[in-house]
């Protein structure tokens, strides 16, 4: 199996982002650009919001450009789009999230200037940012990516996307493995995973779709979900989180990437995506849906589970 992933075009992408960001800031097309810049540690990349053309030279794009920057346009960061039209660098998976946000009235297309990345993949959260991108260091979501090339962007760097090796999808395999277990075995698996949770809410804070200003799980009148980081409250939290994202999650897997306790959160999201595809033929994509699968219905929907 071809183990290397060709990302030789990332340098050209970085150049193009710098040039385009400088141009749109210079010409006043946008008031700010949300992009990536280099960090202190070797190979590290972090989100940055620039407002002047001169800052554009700080921008970069590498295999460590893992963040879904869409989070900077919602919830606590709503001030950012309010300042004017915003340029934002998006990979295909990130764009799906933006499209979802548009469908949920959180953003309007004309507020955004989309810089789309022909993306060959990014690094897994388990490896250091300086590592080379090979199949073994590739983020699991990239193994089953169907959105290497974002559609409908305002600007896409003129680079050709190198052909990518075909890799076994890891989430699908893991979901199948868990599905084959007995309920008790699955419970035991998740119990152990959820027990680790410390309720740091990184999964929530980094998710573009967790845009509620008052999270249900922070409420105490009534206390729908125990807030303490104990196994009971943790389990409830993760079930509620997965349910609230069902039919909305676009698969950026940021929740799983940022979990300091390595809980495989995206498995829950992928499982729900799979079910919603089977039940209601719904999939997150590049087209804005007026209604999500869980706020619409068809009279002929499956009800084989109802007596």
């Amino acid at each position, binding site marked *: 199996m071809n183990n290397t992933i060709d990302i030789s075009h990332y340098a050209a992408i970085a150049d193009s982002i710098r040039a385009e960001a400088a141009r749109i800031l210079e010409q006043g097309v946008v008031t700010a650009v949300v992009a990536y810049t280099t960090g202190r540690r070797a190979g590290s990349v972090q989100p940055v919001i620039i407002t002047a053309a001169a800052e554009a030279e700080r921008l970069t794009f590498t295999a460590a450009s893992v963040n879904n920057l869409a989070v900077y346009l919602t*919830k606590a960061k709503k001030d950012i789009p309010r300042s004017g039209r915003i340029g934002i660098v998006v990979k295909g998976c990130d764009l799906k999230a933006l499209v979802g946000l548009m469908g*949920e*009235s*959180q953003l309007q297309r004309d507020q955004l200037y989309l810089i789309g990345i022909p993306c060959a993949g990014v690094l897994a959260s388990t490896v250091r940012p300086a590592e080379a991108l090979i199949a073994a260091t590739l983020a699991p979501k990239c193994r089953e990516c169907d959105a290497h090339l974002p559609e409908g962007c305002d600007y896409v760097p003129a680079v050709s996307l190198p052909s990518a090796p075909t890799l076994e999808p890891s989430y699908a395999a893991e979901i199948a493995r868990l599905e084959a277990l007995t309920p008790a075995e699955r419970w035991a698996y998740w119990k152990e995973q959820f027990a680790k949770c410390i309720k740091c809410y990184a999964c929530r804070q980094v998710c573009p779709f967790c*845009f*509620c*200003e*008052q*999270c*249900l799980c922070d*409420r105490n*009148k*009534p*206390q*729908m979900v125990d807030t303490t980081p104990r196994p009971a409250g943790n389990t409830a939290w993760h079930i509620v989180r997965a349910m*609230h994202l069902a039919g909305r999650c676009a698969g950026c897997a940021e929740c799983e990437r940022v979990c300091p306790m390595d809980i495989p959160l995206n498995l829950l999201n992928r499982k729900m995506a799979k079910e919603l595809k089977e039940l209601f033929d719904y999939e997150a994509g590049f087209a804005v849906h*007026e*209604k*999500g699968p*869980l*706020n*619409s219905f068809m009279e002929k929907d499956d009800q084989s589970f109802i007596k």
Partner: protein
Amino acid sequence: MSRIGVFVCHCGENISRTVDVERVAAHAATLPGVACATEYKYMCSDPGQTLLKKAISEQRLTHVVVAACSPRMHERTFRKAVEGAGLNPYLCEMANIREHCSWVHEDREEATAKACDIVGMMVERTKKNRVLPAITVPVTKRSLVIGGGIAGIQAALDIADAGHEVVLVEREPSIGGHMAQLSETFPTLDCSQCIMTPKMVDVANHPKITLYTYSEIELVEGYIGNFQVTVRKRARSVNERTCTGCGVCMTKCPQKKIPNKFDQNIGMRTAIYVPFPQAVPNTPVIDRENCTKFKTGKCGVCQKVCGPGAVDFEQQDTLIVEAVGAIVVATGFDLYSISEKPKGSPIKGYGEFGHGKIPDVIDGMTFERLASASGPTGGKIVRPSDGREPKQIVFIQCIGSRAREKGISYCSKVCCMYTAKHTMLYHHKVHDGQAYVFFMDARTPGKSYDEFWRRSIEEEEAVYIRGMVSRLYQKGDKIVVMGSDIAVGVQVEIEADMVVLATAVQPQQGADLLAQKLGISYDKYNFYSEAHAKLRPVECATAGIFLAGACQGPKDIPETVSQASAAAAKVMTLFSKDRLEREPIVARVREAGCVGCFACKKVCAYGAVEEKEIRDRQGNLLRVVASVNPGVCAGCGTCQATCPSKCVELDGYTDEQIVAMIEAL
């Protein structure tokens, strides 16, 4: 701290027989926040309510839980009582320990434990109840009546005579319904058309009644006092305004052999037709399926002969939106055609009686048309097969009705009486004929009914045979009817010339679809459900919608007319106020937390959620949030279950109330 009063009802012995009410009250007294707990024989009685009111003032109660029957039975009663004692009615809840407990469990220990739990759950819920101020909405003082049979006509006339506008919608080309088809009526043998047609004319001439015939209900939106109803007026192909009703078109129409449904298909009509001569309106309609012009493009004779030029082949269906405040449903019944099993019907059919195969086996309504002076035979009772007068006629009752094995367990109520009537009509017209009736029981409650039935036997010589028919077959030009006379215990065999089946009364075809448009409930036979079998027999559970006639269950004419007038009275009561107080069970948005994703708006079936702009003092747009129009909100709460941050809450069913109940268990 709440001071809750818990009142446990014995309901005579209905509750106390299986539930230890003293123990339930004692248990309630130990619950945190309960200030007093007591039991009483009949909480709903006047002394019971007085006890409740007294306790509220003496014990300074903040909330009340009445553990008694279903809230569907007496919630109103107790909320009113609580209101009378100066508390907001929504601070009172009922714990259902009768329908959900004492009546369904026999073990006293188990039932008592369950009752304690139910009371505990409701105590916790009630603690979280908030004062809900009443919501008032304007009332549109116009009414819609669906169905132009005797029920619809009576309701429409009563409401219109009270001075309110009525929109009457009828599916057929003419109003009149089944009563217009009948020959004479029991128990007086009045000519049905003689008493019916003047009422039809009254409808046509009434200044307050707008009549849409050949029309159906397309869509119903809104709520009590404020419905918007879309009526589909089907293309008649004849302009109602210009048509004078001269009838030349019908005489000239070359298509003359189309079975007339009004005559149970034994009489024929033209392709452009009125179903019967006294039709209201007297405007013909073109049956496009059978019209040569529509089938082949040729002909068009009717248009050519029409003086006023009223025939319009291009006419389209039109949709008319009517605003009304109340709806009377009077869609009536149909007789079940036993020869075939309709799709999706639980009824198995009666192929064995040869209906549809043996031409001289007919149903009761066909007999009515034969006996009717204005019918296809001019009132002569003759055999459809050869036009001969039947000398031996057999009536068979309970075809479909009371036959659980066939799928219908109810009694159709009118068949005993109309069969008795048929034997009389037959005897009056065929003096030398003999009528036989196979029956299971004769059910004749009603003023002068039993006397009427006896007359058919004692004076009109009908032979009643108690027993069912086992077999029926054609033999030459006779129909052999084999059955048993269980009263005497012998087998009976009659060579009949004609057989009349008293088939079951069923709701109209499509009754379920109309119910779904109206949002009213119906039973397994598609009869519409009243709000309460005894105390609210003409109201639907859906506010503002009332029932009249056989659409609710089999009824005879006087009953139908009574219910129609009752429904009209209910409508008038509703129209007696300019504004209506409605249950304040509506959704509210906590704007501070709303992020404006409008998931609530997407799931709201009523369009009650609007987008609201929040601006600062300078007028700058800060955010757009959801806002619920309390007049339009129906209170289903789907928005709340959908809202991710629970920033829309349904009053009366808040998360706090529900979680309190779950946590109480």
